[in-house]
């Protein structure tokens, strides 16, 4: 059981994620967008969206530090486990709560504004559910995951992190992960589910951070013959046809992709 969960599934997740990204890039550039709904509602979005996104950036870098930097290194520069844990608890906790509040604002906005709600697909709803679950369990792990049910101290940097790094060496340290607490296990499983979903949901927009904007010239010239003017978007994924009033009042809007 542990071998499947911590030794096999992570690689399957990786394959699906990478394959999915390639598939999306190759066949659905047209659907590669955050599908902004700011046009319908701006007030709540202006608070909720930056809060959520900046918090998730903080959380992301927190994960990088926690998972990728071995305990040995922080010990070497003289950060005690107690101080490290305290720092992680506060910074991670604040970022996590901000993330949760941001998500709550965004989900409330999505539900309360009818135009935004109608632009919400089933795909989006499932994605929100998984994302919310990952965040809640993550917070749970941060605040309660440091003691095992039997009352022993548990340090994720000696379990989860070691397992995570071992994945890259293709020698998954299954025991290390198995020794973790249930909060962390659930968070990791839910996280893997979320990663699998990335290529197939609007989460894809995270992978198009336009950093090249800082370096490109303002004016872009392109020759008509260059890319042969051909869209790589496949059939059935282009523009939606016009709908009539009766269709609008009876059918929910189809996915914009």
């Amino acid at each position: 059981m542990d071998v499947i969960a911590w030794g096999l599934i992570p690689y399957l997740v990786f394959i699906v994620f990478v394959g999915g990204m390639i598939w999306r890039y190759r066949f659905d550039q047209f659907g590669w967008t955050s599908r902004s709904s700011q046009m319908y509602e701006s007030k709540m979005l202006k608070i909720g969206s930056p809060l959520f996104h900046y918090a998730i950036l903080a959380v992301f870098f927190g994960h990088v530090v926690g998972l990728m930097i071995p305990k040995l290194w922080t010990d070497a520069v003289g950060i005690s486990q107690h101080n490290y844990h305290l720092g992680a608890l506060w910074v991670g906790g604040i970022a996590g709560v901000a993330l949760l509040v941001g998500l709550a604002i965004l989900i409330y906005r999505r539900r309360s504004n009818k135009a935004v709600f109608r632009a919400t697909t089933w795909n989006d709803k499932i994605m929100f559910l998984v994302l919310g679950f990952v965040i809640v369990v993550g917070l749970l792990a941060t605040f309660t995951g440091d003691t095992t049910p039997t009352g022993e101290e548990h340090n994720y940097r000696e379990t989860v992190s070691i397992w995570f790094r071992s994945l890259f060496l293709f020698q998954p340290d299954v025991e290390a992960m198995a020794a973790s607490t249930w909060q962390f296990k659930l968070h990791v499983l839910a996280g893997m589910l979320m990663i699998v979903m990335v290529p197939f949901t609007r989460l894809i927009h995270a992978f198009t951070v336009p950093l090249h904007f800082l370096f490109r010239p303002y004016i872009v010239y392109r020759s008509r013959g260059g890319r042969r003017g051909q869209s790589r978007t496949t059939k059935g994924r282009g523009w939606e046809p016009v709908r009539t009033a009766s269709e609008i009042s009876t059918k929910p809007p189809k996915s914009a992709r």
Partner: protein
Amino acid sequence: MAPQRRRVMAQVAMVMNLDKCIGCHTCSVTCKQAWTNRSGLEYVWFNNVETRPGQGYPRTYEDQEKWQGGWVRTRSGRLQLRSGGRFKKLLSIFASPVQPEMHDYYEPWTYDYENLFQSPLSDDFPVARPKSLVTGDDMAITASANWDDSLGGSEASEAADPILVKLREEANLHIKTEYEKTFMFFVPRICEHCLNPSCMASCPSGAIYKREEDGIVLVDQDRCRGWRQCITGCPYKKIYFNHRTGKAEKCHFCYPRLEVGLPTVCSETCVGRLRYIGLILYDPDAVTAAALADDKDLYQAQLDVMLDPRDPQVIADAKASGIQPDWLEAAQRSPVYALIKHFKVALPLHPEYRTMPMVWYVPPLSPVVDLLKDQGHDSEAGGNLFGAIDALRIPLEYLAELFTAGDVEMVRLVLQKLAAMRSYMRDVTLGRPRQPELAAAVGMEERALEQMYRLLAIAKYDERYVIPKAHREDAHNLEEMGCSIDVEGEPGFANDDVFGSSSGRPVPVAIESFAEAKARQRDPGWQ
């Protein structure tokens, strides 16, 4: 060291003669039927016609303090997007700080016609209620793209016209809104296909590009990621967000038609025949410097960027830059160049945005003429017209805010040219002695007045639209490109059409492909 050769590029440009616009909205409607009758674009009009004075569409878009469109010149003399630099844009990417919402355009709707057929027999007449195309709910219609059409509801809506607000505050002018004392004219607007487009500069993804061949500004639908910075960036608000697909869309100058030598749909269907399409040759390396001129010099700076297609040096440079002989010839016959730079009667819309727009306007004399007529004068007599142009400060100031960044003298000169042409040609038509002093008064030759008259009043289809075809060597690309406007599974087009089977994919039957096929059938040299 070899002398630096000047680069020359070609730009498709348009001029609209506002005196001829009757505000019938045919251009808007045909454009909508051709390009924006799709889901997510219900509120979008690539071409719209605005009544001035009025708020425009989206409402008050000219108020750049509010909407942050276009460029500004910084203190250090650099060109910067009004909405901020690149870092600021990236940091605020999670919620665009300045973004028009649906209600700034209008909430699109349809009518519940089904109710007319399906309601049971009753004493009351069944009605087709308006239903929002966004929420599906019943709605009250309170706005549209031309809600203040022909000064409808002017007292209420005109007060918010950004130009009127500015004139009131700065020049202490008060424009009367009472029906008999006001003036009005129509301004049809499409994308300006600017030489220095701020939508393009704002795009984090780099999805908006200018075509090297003809300068048309397009959005790569595959590369657009829906950040919507272009919408903030464009001061004319002529790039739109498709709220279903999450992508930006804009007027593309009907490029599938242009490439086969046909004018845009809006031009083709224009009832007043007020649109002119032709080429401009320009120096792309001079654009940024020109966009940095002082407000009042911007008009002249833009003229200077445009090159004289008959100048031998320009011709040599153009050939060296790869511009084909037929394109050069078209540039020489360009009605747009004639109106903009030869006669100097066309003016750019809001040059102060510093985007160097490529759709120019012959300002209307009609507000002046109408006022004269209403006061019982002979509105066509030269003396009266000239006097009125000088006396009627308000329409002049208003036009100057639209077309010359507030330079009234420039507008006055253009209107005087138009007035001189009218009076001069009236004498010609009525067989009275000609008055050469009319031409001299506006610094023109008599012959030039007559040529201008021909271009503005008589010019036939071929003279109004001088559009060279896209190049043969690229023609097979054109044929394949049908897919960009393709409709899958539509009945009515099989592989072989009336002109014999065409190679490659089936192309939907449209006036463009029809013209292509016809040309192919008749031209033995077609490969």
